[in-house]
């Protein structure tokens, strides 16, 4: 029961972060949003008994790809135009 509630909260948070990172005009915040989505997804993978995938998601999704995005934003522009 507690696990079910926790999973529900995690899924809800994941969706909020996903919508936020699509909607926001500040690309840096969007990257942080996708990083949060990656972290929550990796927790969900762990709960679903897939530790291998959880590790890959945490290391690549939350670590390396965030770094690559931040570097790219630093080289280009931070704000999205209409």
């Amino acid at each position: 029961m507690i696990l079910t509630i926790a999973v529900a909260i995690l899924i809800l948070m994941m969706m909020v972060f996903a919508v936020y990172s699509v909607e926001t005009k500040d690309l840096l915040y969007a990257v942080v949003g996708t990083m949060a989505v990656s972290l929550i997804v990796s927790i969900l993978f762990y709960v679903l008994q897939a530790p291998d995938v959880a590790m890959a998601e945490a290391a690549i999704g939350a670590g390396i790809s965030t770094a690559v995005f931040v570097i790219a934003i630093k080289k280009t522009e931070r704000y999205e135009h209409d």
Partner: protein
Amino acid sequence: MIKKSIALILIAILFVAIFFTLANDLPFGDNRTTTGVSDKYIYHGVNDTGASNLVTAIVVNYRGFDTLGEVTVLFVAATGVGAVLYNMGRPAGKKRKKTEASLIVRTGSRILFPMMLLFGAYIFVHGHLTPGGGFQGGAVIATAFLFKYVSDTRYHIDHNKFTATESVVGMTFALVGIMGLLLTGYFLFNFLPNGSPGELLSAGIIPIIYVAIGIKVGAELTGILDNMMEVEQ
């Protein structure tokens, strides 16, 4: 406005769908969901391959050819990044314009860098025993190099050495496959003894391939990061 509310309603429906699927149809930690081919893997996997981590048994042994393709995809991606960013040039003698990292971060990276490398190596060497494997360990190794880049503005890797390492380990993967072809008639056939599951030297060719994949992925991701960092504004 209407567009947004439609989107929100769709998201709510998606949430309900995902949540009730997870809550009702997928019992956590229960193998009631297994059907057909997965039963074969679960009941015969350890005996067939000698790897106590079934995910690794599937990824490297049963589906080893797919993994070779995956590694190739990553290689093509790294090459693509290099090709796109190559012409943006790196004029000789021009420093990257950046604030120097403080002494704390620099000293921290000095101490933590070898430890992070060893931890990445631990993950891919034990790929057939514990969760993790070549891809995860390679990503950890790449973060170690990323920390180096963050802490020292003048640091850069030796491209020739990295490319050489990458080619050698990539060729190792292919050579192991070809040896299987020569000895038994099947590409990537497990020609080494399985050993007893749970020990480090078991599972035949799996550890060799995972060490190769780990080093290759680490080198490729580091190459991507290096290309991104070096480009001038």
